């Protein structure tokens, strides 16, 4: 594993193009191991596409992605998972018909050969069981193992998103709007879960709720129209004029336009 000061993830001129649209436009960024990073920006800024490029579900059109000195630009999502990249999904992507423990079994076996057992027992090994136990505890879902996922509350489903990503003991965790659609009480509960994640885990967080995000991270990247416009620490981001402009609209304009900018920033 890389020493703490070495970057664990380096993006160089990463571009993701859909036809004429550059959803991610020549983005370069670098994350230290154990860093917590927020990626902010209005809807359509390219945040989720950036995640898809890092996770491999939409490989970059050009540019380079290094993870712990391995060039994974052209790797499949499953190959990146083996390197230690895990993600959650903005739109809940769980196995709704199955119980929590079945979801966790799939998550825990994703990186081990036992997933190829064609006629063996469905029980986990004690090592896998330990990982499932720890991930459920970290996501505060202990005791909910036998509940069918689609019968859980939405908040618990968001917790399970995190638990499944943790079960493979990743080194890089990509959280795509983990608190999307949650009530304020549920949000602070989920923020606690994220805050208490192991400190050696590198976390990248996409979030619309700026207060929630800034309270959780060491460093912030703000995107707009596929490009990085600002990178700074949370305190400076709060007072950064450019960020306020992106989120709240330009100052000294008529009230109607200000409102419109505000609505955009809230993702409507």
């Amino acid at each position, binding site marked *: 594993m890389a020493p703490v000061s070495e970057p664990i993830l380096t993006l160089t001129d990463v571009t993701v193009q859909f036809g004429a649209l550059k959803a991610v436009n020549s983005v370069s960024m670098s994350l230290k191991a154990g860093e917590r990073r927020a990626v902010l920006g209005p809807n359509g800024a390219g945040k989720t596409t950036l995640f898809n490029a890092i996770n491999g579900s939409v490989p970059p059109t050009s540019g380079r992605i290094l993870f712990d000195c391995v060039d994974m630009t052209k790797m499949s999502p*499953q190959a990146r*998972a083996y390197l230690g990249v895990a993600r959650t999904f903005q739109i809940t992507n*769980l196995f709704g*018909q199955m119980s929590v423990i079945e979801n966790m079994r*799939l*998550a825990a*076996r994703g990186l081990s050969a036992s997933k190829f*057992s*064609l006629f063996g027992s469905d029980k986990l090994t004690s090592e896998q069981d330990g990982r499932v136990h720890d991930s459920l505890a970290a996501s505060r879902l202990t005791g909910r193992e036998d509940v069918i996922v689609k019968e859980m509350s939405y908040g618990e489903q968001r917790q399970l998103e995190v638990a*499944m990503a943790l079960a493979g003991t990743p080194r890089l965790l990509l959280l795509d709007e983990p608190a999307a659609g949650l009530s304020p009480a549920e949000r602070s509960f989920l923020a606690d879960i994220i805050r208490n994640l192991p400190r050696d885990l590198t976390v990248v967080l996409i979030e619309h709720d700026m207060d929630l995000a800034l309270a959780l991270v060491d460093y912030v990247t703000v995107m707009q129209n596929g490009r990085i416009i600002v990178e700074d620490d949370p305190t400076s981001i709060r007072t950064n004029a450019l960020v306020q402009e992106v989120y709240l609209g330009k100052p000294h304009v008529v009230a109607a336009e200000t409102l419109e900018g505000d609505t955009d920033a809230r993702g409507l």
Partner: protein
Amino acid sequence: MSKLLTSPLRAFAALAVLGLALLPLVLPTYYVSVATQILIFSVLAMSVDVLAGFTGRTPLCHGAIFGTSTYVVLYTASVYGLPLPAAMLLGVIAATLLASVFGLLAVRTSGVYFLLLTLALGLIVWGVCLRWTEVTGGENGERGQLRAALGMSPRQLYSGVAVVVALVTFVMWRFVRSPFGLTMRGIRDGESRMASLGYNVSLHLTIAFTASGFFAGIAGALYAVFNDFVSPSTVQLSQSVSGLLMAIVGGIGTLFGAFVGSFLIIALEQAVSKVTERWLMVLGLTFIAIMIFAPEGVIGKARLLMAGRAEPKTKA
């Protein structure tokens, strides 16, 4: 899954197994052979269910995979004079290889494209069997001497088939309950999630397809012994369709529903064709009725009803 929910079904299954074992003692010879056919087609329907019910990919080529095994068994036994076990083994191997090739070609698609691609692959097999007359006998098909060589009575054949089917059913049950079985269900419900967890979706689907073809091949080899004759109609589309219908009627994703589906469709065919030649019309109407009133199939519906009874106050 709660134990309350499955235990009455288990008791019913135990009764059904007992009934199947005692059947040949009481039935007239003709019906014993119908029962043998039901058992063989149950295995075909289960092999379809492995893909359709567990991976969510509905295939229309399993009749062709099944029939390839039947052709190979009859050909190698009658032309090369291979002993029956060796011929059957070759039949199953041929079906498995064919399925692995079909799998490689088909697993990158899903939904209606998967359906159409597998349909086309099945039609190729049918075309080959029809035209490659030197080997397959063309439309006249191929008649074997397997039954005569075995010297088994219909009752003995039934018992032999029942033992093989019981073993295969147990193996398939283990298969769908294994870690790999859970993987198949995961792929059915969320491919992008599976990939991000480290699963190579195409590879797992190819393995599932090959395993499913292996089971269909066993059914085809049994059918060779049972029928002692094979023609292009054994590999044609309607064979694939009836395997799928049996799986759907019994309940997709239930595995054992295949027995119910196979029984209902073959029994209906026997009963209706005594009265009218338009048996396919009756089958079509029955199928429509099932799709409207019990789209989850007979076993699926029974499970739902029992779950309703176990928890009378369901959703508000």
